[in-house]
């Protein structure tokens, strides 16, 4: 894919590992001219803009408002990295029989994860939050998790479109 402004970040001739993904989101975060125009504030729902996609990676700019919440999910076969560039986000990791492991990522923070990572991202910051997400290989299928009335954990396989190209997104 040929978003010209990303070309200086380097071509992507193979899938990126976690460290490379983390470097990439850090480099993009340091160049607000790339992502700032894609920020959209919407109290109703998170807003997603694709900054880049090729055979090996995809990069998204996600705008969050207070209360927005992904629910617990995985990224199937994709590894990923996230840089928070504005506001703050809470990441929770599912722990069986215990409270979730919680980490707060403020503006300037970045983290990465492998394909086995199950997490939930939510925004409880006063103002808007903005984050840069990169996935390699590009996000395709995802798993979403819910606890059934009998306490068992259920996983549903969904297209990445359910998360990043939701039905109610603007054209």
């Amino acid at each position, binding site marked *: 894919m040929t978003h010209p402004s990303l070309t200086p970040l380097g071509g992507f001739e193979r899938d990126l590992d976690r460290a490379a993904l983390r470097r990439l989101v850090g480099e993009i975060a340091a160049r607000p001219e790339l992502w700032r125009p894609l920020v959209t504030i919407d109290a109703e729902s998170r807003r997603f803009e694709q900054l880049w996609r090729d055979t090996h990676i995809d990069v998204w700019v996600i705008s969050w408002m207070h209360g927005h919440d992904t629910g617990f999910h995985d990224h199937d076969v994709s590894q990923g990295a996230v840089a928070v560039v504005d506001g703050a986000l809470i990441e929770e990791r599912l722990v069986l029989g215990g409270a979730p492991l919680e980490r707060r990522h403020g503006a300037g923070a970045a983290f990465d994860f492998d394909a086995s990572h199950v997490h939930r991202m939510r925004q409880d910051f006063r103002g808007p939050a903005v984050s840069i997400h990169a996935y390699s290989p590009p996000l395709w299928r995802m798993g979403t998790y819910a606890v059934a009335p009998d306490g068992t954990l259920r996983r549903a396989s969904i*297209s990445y*479109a*359910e998360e990043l190209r939701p039905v109610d997104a603007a054209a």
Partner: protein
Amino acid sequence: MPTIDVHQHLWPEPLLAALARRRRPPMIFRRGDGWTLRMHGEGEWPVDPRDHDPDRRAALLDAHDVDRALVALSCPLGIEALPADEAAPLLEAYHAGVAELPARFGAWAAVGLAEPDPDALAGLLDRGFVGACVTADALGEPSAVIALAPVLALLERRGAPLFVHPGPSPYTLLAERPVGAPAWWPAMTRYVASMNAAWHAFAVAGRPAHPGLRVCFAMLAGLAPLQRERLVARGGDPATDPLTFVDTSSYGARAIDATIRELGVDALVHGSDVPVVPGREPALGDAVRAALRDRNPARLLSTATEDVFA
């Protein structure tokens, strides 16, 4: 945002009449109680005129929850590939007929290939045709794409999309179905190969020359997007671009989802190929459904307010 099916076929009454007047393929003729189509390379097929009745088709759109359908001339008939004097009355009958369809139908203009005529195409765009449908064989190698540059440049200049559909060029019109091959043979062999060829020829020669042209390849481009690892292994450039789309005709959830994996969901549009095959709905979730039927067709037809890449 309207739900759009970008790929249907409807032979309007003037075209049926013009085909019935012919004495060599492509032609339709009465046999017993019904009509039969005879075409080059595909043998004979029964034709039910009710399949091409606008009122019945409109009811089918309702049943499929589709607001608007784009119809194209059926390229495998080979009309576009006929000598210009033979093609002209058939093309005129198609264009005149579909121009009279109710407003919820749009139409792809057909392009005669013996003597491609950008001026005629410009006139059709002026009359409201959404873009042009060109046969895959006519775009099957880089030099063929270059030869059609006047047509592609006109589309690009007018902001109208190109639809690539399997079908012959004047050079491939007389290819015959092999003896003993079942009826589906061309659709599983020649069509698939020709869509792959057109996809790659356009990437090599079409996109560089026409950077602003929106293009849609029927039938997931014969699954050409899934050949990208092989393309890289052979030294090709796997670049994708946001102005190239594929429609889903004849495919189901597995092939569609595999193509989404390769191209991303933004590149796919719903195309049913009704009435050649019944319209089917892949069970890939509401978001994929909305992307393929609403949002992406709007971008292909440039009726969206913004593009994916801001």
